[in-house]
């Protein structure tokens, strides 16, 4: 086990508390920075796409993993961000302004969804956000004068002060930078006063209110932050697609995002990123097996959805803490080797049983 050496409370508030963290995160950053030099064009694009998914997953994680509010409508928030960004750019707004503006616009829509659904939770909230997602898809498909209907909208190429970001390498770095910024901002927010209020709402709304958390305000704020971040991801997603149509932001995308946060591990930002890697890489894995397995062995349609469902069930059954939980366990195994106990991460449940009869 490692213990940080702390002489001041400020030491405990640092981003990286251990010396080894500097090494591991530094190494990760170095690898990500040189990746374009070693990776082929196709795979570089795929990695950039995973970054975009990871940004959206961080957005959903803030809402579902930290505030405990379920959303089946985040595909629609992604869409709102993508269309807002594409429309702003089409009207001559420069990229650096359009991307945050798309985030703000999506955050506003997030408030519009979050506020009326304040009293809902669990399944009811899932249904309400699902309805929202259907409405958005419908509006995007039918408001032809604005969105181009089902034919869609061609997205302008991104540039930064006249310097094109449309190339694979440039776009990769752009997505990496935005992801790093978003993760950092989310991490800071979630470990300060606001983030603790979110977590309190997730674990006990009654206690949260008793300690002064304005439930309506913070739930709405969580929706705004979550939608805003997802909207920024939407803006980048629009560039990735090049041409956006309403189908790209339907229920399937929402489900993919939910899969990311559950598989990654609810309540952890690292989980959001791991989940995005997992879900983002899945199509490549399927394609690989299609190539190596005999023809006709894998069905051509519906395979992904079935796999998603199966994976979701398996994780919920065997690793509710998700990939992040797995990661923590493996780390603990190495740190405490050979003293690791299998029960280290098991919850003490015994008291609960007696409690039930009181």
């Amino acid at each position, binding site marked *: 086990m490692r213990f940080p050496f702390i002489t001041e*409370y*400020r030491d*405990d*508030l640092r981003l990286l508390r251990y010396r080894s963290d500097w090494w591991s995160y530094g190494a990760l950053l170095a690898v990500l920075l040189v990746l374009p030099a070693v990776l082929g064009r196709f795979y570089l694009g795929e990695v950039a796409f995973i970054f975009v998914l990871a940004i959206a997953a961080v957005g959903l994680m803030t809402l579902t993993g930290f505030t405990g509010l379920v959303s089946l409508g985040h595909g629609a928030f992604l869409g709102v961000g993508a269309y807002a960004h594409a429309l702003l750019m089409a009207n001559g707004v420069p990229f650096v302004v359009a991307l945050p503006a798309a985030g703000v616009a999506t955050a506003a829509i997030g408030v519009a969804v979050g506020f009326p659904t304040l009293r809902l939770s669990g399944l009811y909230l899932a249904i309400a956000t699902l309805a929202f997602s259907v409405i958005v898809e419908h509006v995007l498909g039918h408001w032809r004068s604005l969105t181009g209907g089902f034919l869609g909208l061609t997205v302008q190429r991104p540039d930064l002060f006249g310097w094109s970001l449309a190339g694979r390498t440039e776009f990769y770095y752009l997505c990496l930078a935005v992801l790093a910024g978003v993760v950092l*901002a989310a991490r*800071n*927010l979630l470990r*300060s*006063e*606001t*983030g*603790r*209020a979110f*977590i*309190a709402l*997730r*674990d*006990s709304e*009654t*206690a*949260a*209110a*008793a*300690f*002064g*958390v*304005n*439930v309506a305000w913070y739930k709405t*704020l969580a929706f705004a932050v979550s939608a805003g971040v997802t909207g920024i991801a939407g803006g980048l997603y629009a560039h990735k697609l090049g041409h956006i149509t309403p189908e790209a932001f339907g229920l399937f995308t929402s489900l993919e995002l939910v899969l990311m946060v559950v598989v990654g591990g609810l*309540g952890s930002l690292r989980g959001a990123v791991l989940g995005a890697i997992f879900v983002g890489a899945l199509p490549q894995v399927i394609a690989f097996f299609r190539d190596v397995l005999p023809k006709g062995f894998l069905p051509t349609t519906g395979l992904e959805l079935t796999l998603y469902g199966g994976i979701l069930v398996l994780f919920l059954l065997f690793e509710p803490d998700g990939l992040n939980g797995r990661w923590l366990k493996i780390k603990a195994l190495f740190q405490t080797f050979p003293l690791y106990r299998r029960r280290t991460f098991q*919850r*003490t449940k015994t*008291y609960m049983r*007696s*409690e039930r009869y*009181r």
Partner: protein
Amino acid sequence: MIGLAVRGLSVSFGGVRALRDVSFAVAPGEILSIVGPNGAGKTTVFNLVSRLFDADAGTITAGDRDITYLARHEIAAVGIARTFQNLELFDHASVLDNLLLARHAHRQSTVVAQILRLPSAMRAEVEHRLRAEQVIERFELERFRSATVANLPYGARKLVEFARALCLEPKLLLLDEPAAGLNPEERADLAFRIADVRDELGTTIVLVEHDMGLVGEVSDRVLVLNDGQLLAEGTPDVIRRDPAVIAAYLGAAT
């Protein structure tokens, strides 16, 4: 430290008249215990004071402030903290984070300052941490500091809830059956801690408790509720000998 005055409080849930015209007052710095058989309405008094429900009639005054119509999240800022009979902890957060959340009423930085970790946000964090550590030290919770609450044994969870309430720096503290489910050793510690909080911090305390030993040890005054009504009021010794109180308890037991 503030007192509490409840006048003519009544509330019913459907057909159940949980409280009927209950009036009492707590002086600043006093420890008042509310006892009574199960279902007497003790927790309901706390729920009304912390504004989880609306009263049908009556007024509640904390210090010189009428809190009868405040929103439930405004109660913390008045300086009232409470614990819950059935534990309402933030189970999937650490003990430290549970304590830090209790500082919400004292929050001082903006969302933007928090995202950018501006000096104002950092100062706030350090200040909250300092307060939380003082409570951790007072309750000897050091070894649980970074443990997830859900992993703690029951007694420790009870203590964390008490500690969390204290982190608010309350002027009035409502403890709902803090001794329930504790072993004798933990119970003795608890009696000491309740008295200690009042003596050192001067906090006004209202205690709901079934353990008459504990009640006798720490309270200045005892209030007996039965079937939603005030039955008796007095010092612990007087209450223990009150025939009406004995009858109520024996009656409830049969």
